Structures are given as structure tokens and as C-alpha cells.
């Protein structure tokens, strides 16, 4: 097990007597993209600020790269973060000027690296313009550029997609994915569940400051669904195979996780040999939106459902969502 880059242990934050984060624990490992999702007011931004060291916990601990960022601010040399939406900059300085300032505060950064991150976020042409005239999306991209400036080991982003057009969004996703592939631990909060499914490793669902569920999206992406005669017998058979990590019956289907992607091709042969007719074998696409809606609704029995802007959007037809 790698040493977690971020360790949050029984974190509680109260303003007066009102708890906004309650007994929250999670870890983010190097190379992971960990998403916090939840309705407005669920406590996502507070968690981001607590982890980044901008706010103090009422109870519990936050450790970043093994140390408490409040006691050892030097650890922030290895942190990149955007905690404002839109990202905050000095409006009278140019994009490049702001990045230079960030570099100075972080202990110095070569001019070449500033140009690299500007190019990476496609801001090379706007580098000399005052940030005051940047669009919302440009400021957000500059925020990601500033966060990436010091080649961080930990990236913390609050609503990185806020105000971005689809192309900028795609760019930011690609940058975050690459950063994670390079070993950076990424913690982000978002309302965009599609982006979460697209590239996050794990997702925490928050409601009223509590962690009500944590979903491992890597496992979910590797799931397959087989529509078969006698699903219980098929499940029992699959479970005995060394190349199947897990199998479960879900209604008329059997959902399984192969230990390697190539193993999927062996399933139809195995079941046919056992005399079981296979009607369909497909990847089990995880419907995070539906799952999220169900989980939030289950936490609000009296309200009968979530009131969040995501949850209010039409839910696509079920594609086998929910855990097996």
C-alpha cells in the first residue's frame, strides 16, 4: 500500500454549534483522482479548505504528504491548489506576472516553466494581457496553470470546471489525468458527475457534511454484465474461476469483475460448456448520476429526493446502475 498523499481522519468542522463537516475520513493516494460530490451545502468546499490548510478543524486531523500543513507550511511547496471559483489573481498583473508572483511565493521558478504551464493551458497568446480582462474560463485555466507551476505532488481543486466551455473542460481534464498518471494525488470537488465518471478513481458522496458513500470507480469501470440462463448457477460458476475477482446476481443479470480485461473473452465459452445460454455480454456502465440520486434521496426520506441541480436533471434510462 502506498503512503497516502492526503489523510483525513475523523474530520469535523463546526461554525458555532452547527457542524458543516462531520466525522469525515478518507485518503487520497499518489496517482489517484479523488472527487467530492454532493448537493450545494454538503460541505465540499469546507473540506477542500480544511485539507488545503485554509481552515482549522474543530476535531480530527488532516495530513498532507505525512505532515500537518498548519504546522509545516513548507509542505505547500509540493501543493498546487485552486480554491476559488473563478481562480483569484491580481487583476492589474498579466497572466505571466501573476504566475511569476506565484513562483516567487513558492521559492522561485524558472521562466521556462512559466511558459510551459501557460502553453499547457493554451494561454500563451494571452500571457501578457492583464488578468482583469480575462474571461471566467481563462481565469480558471490560469488557476490550473498556477496550481501546476511547481509540479505538485498534491493537487486540490474546488470546482475546476466552473465557467468553462467544453473545450477548456476537456483540456483541464487531460491535464489532471496526466498529473495523476505522473503520480500526483488529485482531490477535487465538482458538480459534474460525467467528468467524475470519465477520469476519477474514487468518488465520495457528501450530504450535510457526512460521507454517505465512497465509490471505487476503477472497480466500476472494470465491471461486465452477462444476461444468462440461470443467473445463480452462472454466478457460482464464475466465482470459482481464478480470473474472476467478484461476481454477483443483479435481477436477471450476473455482474462480474474480471481480474484482467482479456479474461472477459473466456466467459461465454465457460458458460456455454456448462450448458448455460448466454444472451448478452456487455460492459456494465456505471450510472453515477442515478446512483448519486438514489443515495442522496435515501438520506432524505422525508423529502423524497435530492434538491440539488444535478439531481434535478432528467435521469437517463437505467443501465444497470447500483452496486451488485
Amino acid at each position: 500500500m502506498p503512503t497516502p498523499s492526503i489523510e483525513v481522519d475523523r474530520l469535523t468542522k463546526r461554525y458555532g454549534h452547527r457542524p458543516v463537516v462531520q466525522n469525515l475520513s478518507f485518503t487520497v493516494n499518489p496517482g489517484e483522482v479523488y472527487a467530492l460530490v454532493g448537493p450545494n451545502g454538503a460541505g465540499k468546499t469546507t473540506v477542500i479548505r480544511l485539507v488545503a490548510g485554509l481552515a482549522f478543524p474543530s476535531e480530527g486531523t488532516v495530513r498532507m504528504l505525512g505532515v500537518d500543513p498548519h504546522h509545516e507550511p513548507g509542505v505547500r511547496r509540493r501543493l498546487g491548489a485552486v480554491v476559488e471559483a473563478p481562480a483569484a489573481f491580481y487583476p492589474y498583473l498579466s497572466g505571466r506576472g501573476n504566475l511569476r508572483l506565484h513562483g516567487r511565493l513558492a521559492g522561485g521558478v524558472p521562466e521556462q516553466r512559466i511558459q510551459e504551464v501557460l502553453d499547457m493551458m493554451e494561454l500563451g497568446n494571452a500571457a501578457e494581457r492583464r488578468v482583469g480582462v480575462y474571461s471566467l474560463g481563462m481565469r480558471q485555466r490560469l488557476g490550473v496553470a498556477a496550481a501546476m507551476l511547481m509540479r505538485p505532488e498534491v493537487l486540490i481543486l474546488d470546482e475546476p470546471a466552473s465557467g468553462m466551455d467544453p473545450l477548456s473542460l476537456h483540456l483541464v481534464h487531460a491535464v489532471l489525468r496526466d498529473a495523476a498518471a505522473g503520480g500526483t494525488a488529485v482531490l477535487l470537488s465538482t458538480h459534474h458527475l460525467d467528468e467524475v465518471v470519465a477520469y476519477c478513481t474514487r468518488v465520495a458522496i457528501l450530504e450535510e457534511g457526512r460521507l454517505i458513500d465512497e465509490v471505487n470507480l476503477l472497480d466500476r469501470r472494470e465491471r461486465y454484465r452477462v444476461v444468462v440462463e440461470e443467473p445463480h448457477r452462472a454466478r457460482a460458476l464464475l466465482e470459482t474461476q481464478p480470473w474472476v475477482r467478484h461476481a454477483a446476481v443483479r435481477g436477471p443479470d450476473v455482474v462480474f469483475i474480471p481480474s484482467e480485461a482479456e479474461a472477459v473473452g473466456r466467459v461465454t465459452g465457460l458458460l456455454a460448456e456448462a450448458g448455460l445460454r448466454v444472451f448478452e455480454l456487455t460492459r456494465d456502465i456505471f450510472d453515477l448520476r442515478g446512483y448519486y440520486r438514489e443515495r442522496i434521496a435515501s438520506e432524505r426520506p422525508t423529502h423524497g429526493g435530492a434538491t440539488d441541480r444535478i439531481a434535478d436533471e432528467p435521469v437517463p434510462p437505467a443501465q444497470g446502475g447500483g452496486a451488485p
Partner: protein
Amino acid sequence: MEAGKVARLGSVRFSLILLILFPLLWAYAPGIYKVYGLYLVSAYQVPALSLLSSMQFLLPLLVAISAAELLGIEIANGTLQTVLLRPVSRSQWLLSKLMVVTLYPFVILAVFGLVSLLAGAPYGYGSFVGGTGLGQSGLLGQGTMSAGQAFGEVARAYLVAGYSLVPVALLALLFTVVFMNAAGGALATLSVLIFMKLLVVFPALDPYLLTTQLNAYAKPVGNLGWVVALIALYAAAFAAAAVVLFERKDF
């Protein structure tokens, strides 16, 4: 870096405009005799007139507004969080602000004094019969005063006035940390100064009040020891409180 930020503050530009206009208007205002009972005879008397009419309200207010804005604008723009996410300790960053607001009263008083002297040009810069209004003998003086003596009195008075405004600037910064916005910081400072002024009904408290020390510029040099110590005490207390609160603040 912080000094550059001060120069860009709207309140600083506004203050400078006022402090440039003020002596230019006052030096030739028709009601000066009626209000202050004096006829100006020397350029060195204009700085006294400027301080007399602004030290109790206008200058503390302008200093408080700019000091509060220096931190308040970082809070409003969100750049405070951006800076605190870098490997800079909170107290280290606030100390740079504290240093700038400590120097700020001296800078604006230097401008104010210089413009006041320039505004008095038609009255002449030579020796004159009377006083600068900033020394022991007031505006009437004791015979003829040389230009050098007069300039010395003006410079000393402006230095002391700047010094006595330092706690006001630090108090504004402290209240901005408390209320997390510039308007709250400036108005709370103003309220405290008004409250202190009302405490003159307790004569025993009077020597200890910050508002009393705002008149220290007119005191003779020999009596300044106590004033310097008291103002330093106020400044240190406000600065320390600001750092302690800032260290524990949630952003």
C-alpha cells in the same frame, strides 16, 4: 511587493487627491481668520494649519481606510487564499502588511507636509515674525523665526503626527482581520476613535487615550518620551492581536 499594492489602492489615490487639494484650498480660504483667528504670514504656517484642521478626523480616517483596504482587497479578490496556499507562513505574510501600514502614515504625511509648504509659497519661505504653530510658542511666536528653525519645527511635527497615526493604521488592520472586510475594518476603527474621544469626560483616562496622543505633534520635544512609549505600546498591542487572530482565522 506590498508597497506596490498600496500604490494601486483606490483609497490611497483618493487620500492623495484630498491631501493635495486640502492645503491648496485652506491656505487661501476666506474663513481662516474667522475659524482659527489667524492671518498667515509665512509658508511655514500652512503645514500647521493643515495638521490642526485634519489630525483629529480626516487623517485618521484616511489612514484607517487605506490600511483596511490593503488587507480587505486581498480578502475580497480571493488573493489572500491564493497566497496562503503557498509556502508562506501566515504571520510572515501579515507582518509584511503590518510593515507597510506602519510606514504608510509617514508617507502620506510627507506628501501632505510638502504640499502644504508648497501651497504657502506666496507667503514666502524666509524668516518671519511669529511662530509656525507647531512649536511651543504657537502661531504668535517669540520674535523672529529663521527659515531653518521653522522648517525644523514643521518636520518634527509631521514626524510625530505620522508616528501617532501608526496605531490607527494597525487598529484598522486588526479590525479588518476581525471582520474580514475593509469597510468593517475602517468603520470599526473610526467608532473606536470616536468612543475614545467621548472618554474625555474621565480626566484620569485622558493621558492614556490614543485620541489624546493624536495632538502630540504640538507638544514640546522634552515631553515626547511618554507619548512615544504609549503610542509604541498601542501599536505593539494592535499588531500582536492582529497576528494572533490572523493565525487562527478560517479562510
